């Protein structure tokens, strides 16, 4: 079974600063995907960034980037130039394509507050 651990229940950052959210995971699979999802108060889960385990290059999406350390099973999210709209819950998630469908395992989340 796969597990995803987020050890930071809450974090805060000043507007325009940079913040890093931590995530570790455990799996015996060699082929898998990692995700960061954002959940604002509207409750809708929004995909922020995705990383394929076979790719060594870290994924980036505008102000969002990841630090993927496969050997350490670590997958942190860096948010640069934080904006007030980044305030939300952030969930790290894991998925293996075994079975061909997206059964995603989520961590417990980190509540991020961006302070003006």
């Amino acid at each position, binding site marked *: 079974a796969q597990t995803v651990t987020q050890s930071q229940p809450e974090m805060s950052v000043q507007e325009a600063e940079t913040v890093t959210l931590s995530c570790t995971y455990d799996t015996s699979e060699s082929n898998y995907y990692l995700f960061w999802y954002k959940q604002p108060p509207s409750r809708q889960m929004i995909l922020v960034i995705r990383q394929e385990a076979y790719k060594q290059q870290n994924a980036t999406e505008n102000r969002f980037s990841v630090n993927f350390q496969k050997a350490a099973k670590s997958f942190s999210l860096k948010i640069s130039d934080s904006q007030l709209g980044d305030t939300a819950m952030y969930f790290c998630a894991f*998925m293996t*394509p075994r079975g061909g469908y997206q059964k995603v395992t989520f961590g417990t989340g980190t509540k991020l507050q961006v302070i003006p």
Partner: protein
Amino acid sequence: GAGVSQSPRYKVAKRGQDVALRCDPISGHVSLFWYQQALGQGPEFLTYFQNEAQLDKSGLPSDRFFAERPEGSVSTLKIQRTQQEDSAVYLCASSSSISGQGARDSPLHFGNGTRLTVT
């Protein structure tokens, strides 16, 4: 519609009542998932449909939980004889991926969820 639609947005039920939660996925999406999100927790997988076929129901917590998708589009999650521990947000997600193709091409699209409170 443009996104995944769930209704009702809020539901309050007295312990022992039956409830039905509706999910209207993105048109044409063959895969549909239900997740349960308890307060302060991450979503947990309940069940998966490919079209009308329920291929995985391993996450359903008890036989009081039942899901269906009879025509391969709209899905209903039914909870019988609700208990206080059923209080949670129930999220629905859809995807255009098909079993066997893998997951790299189509991320999950989530609805806004239904917040169920059992009193």
